[in-house]
């Protein structure tokens, strides 16, 4: 078995219109910029995939990555905890114009719902958001004298994540805090694509150090020197670049 995919374009070629797409990263840290841009390029060339639901902690920054997806009109709905950033204009404008939907989820609930999706737990109770506007309409229950909100699992058709080292079997490690949502998104998506800075043979990752076991990963694509979203934004990058 070999989960390597030859190109970024191939890695995102099957994502259909209307798909729910989990995208790793917290702000720019862990954002799979190259996979996102390959998806945008496909959309600009073919009109697909359109009307996506994107699940990420944030809602993009500047004019690259998720912000660029939104700017190009591919995204019908964001599921996130914090749709603000240094430069959130793209999301903000579409949101205020009613052109994009928002499901706001407390960050820990977002993480736990994703983990539940990957772990076969359809619902769980959390103290988070009890008594607040974000709990409206959700079942509540009391356990041991304290009140909790019932939350449902969150799954996706596809996860796009960024990892540091991956082997042919899909075992992954991450780089520092770029890990964030990637391991749980890999669990929760029907199809997980990881862009990795280093590809190694099976055995090239210490079995103790594997963070995401290959069972959660379907495709691995090599991106040796990935862009850092923060660097792109500091350089005022825009995707796609407008030809002169």
């Amino acid at each position, binding site marked *: *078995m070999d989960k390597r995919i030859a190109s970024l374009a191939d890695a995102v070629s099957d994502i259909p219109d209307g798909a729910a797409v989990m995208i790793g990263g917290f702000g720019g840290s862990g954002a799979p910029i190259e996979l996102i841009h390959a998806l945008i390029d496909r959309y600009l060339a073919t009109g697909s995939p359109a009307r996506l639901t994107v699940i990420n902690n944030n809602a993009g920054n500047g004019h690259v990555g998720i912000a660029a997806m939104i700017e190009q009109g591919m995204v019908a709905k964001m599921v996130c905890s914090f749709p603000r950033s240094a430069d959130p204009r793209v999301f903000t404008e579409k949101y205020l114009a009613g052109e994009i939907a928002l499901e706001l989820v407390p960050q820990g609930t977002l993480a736990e719902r994703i983990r539940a999706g990957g772990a*076969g737990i359809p619902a769980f109770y959390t103290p988070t958001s009890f008594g607040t506007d974000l709990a409206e309409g959700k079942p509540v229950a009391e356990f041991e004298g304290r009140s909790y909100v019932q939350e449902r699992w969150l799954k996706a058709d596809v996860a796009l994540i960024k990892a540091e080292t991956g082997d042919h079997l899909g*075992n992954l490690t991450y780089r520092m805090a770029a890990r964030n949502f990637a391991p749980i998104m890999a*669990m929760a998506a029907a199809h997980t694509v990881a862009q990795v800075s280093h590809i190694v043979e099976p055995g090239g990752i210490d*079995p103790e150090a*594997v963070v995401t*076991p*290959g*069972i959660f990963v379907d495709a691995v694509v090599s991106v040796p020197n990935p862009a850092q979203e923060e660097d792109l934004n500091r350089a005022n990058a825009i995707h796609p670049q407008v030809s002169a």
Partner: protein
Amino acid sequence: MTKLTNAQIAWRAAQDIHDGAYVNLGIGFPEMVARFQPKGRQAIFHTENGILGFGEAPAPGQEDWDLINAGKKAVTLKPGTAFFHHADSFAMVRGGHLDVAILGAYQVAQNGDLANWSTGPKGVPAVGGAMDLVHGAKRVAVITDHVTKDGKPKLVDRCTLPLTGLGCVTRIYTSLAVVDIKDGRFLLREKLPALSFDELQSLTGAPLHRDGDVADLIVPEV
């Protein structure tokens, strides 16, 4: 009566495991399936206690007792092995990430119900991971002798022993036949050529149905 040995049943079950499949084998007899992977195919074995992609048993005396499977038997590392904790291990199970789980059975009913953890209120009950495995693996198969030691059917109309899971089994590899479960009925797929349909039916606790031809169950040299 001629019937398949346990090894031969395990061999038959192994033929249906595709290359690259993620597989959990129940402790005991089902573990034997790993020995019979067809050439050119390599399944990736999962064990409840937190290993994915382990290798076969070590030579006697070479055991490392931190490297065991769910049956507490020593296994070995392979390139690409990964370790993880128990909650992650059962996230793999319950979360639908395994392609196949192959389990033993006391009884399997025509509606797919499985009883394989308790023979009743006597003795010490023990369940292990069976109740999790039946909910999660994309395909749950059973390997078993066709009848109990005293000749009673193990493929039954309705389980009389405590259930492990409801409507979970989709294929049964027995010492006499391969039987699918579909729409609440036993569908005979293969049987030993020397055995007539009526003979097999008489050893089975619920009606065997046919849906097209019944193939010969191969008796492999293992």
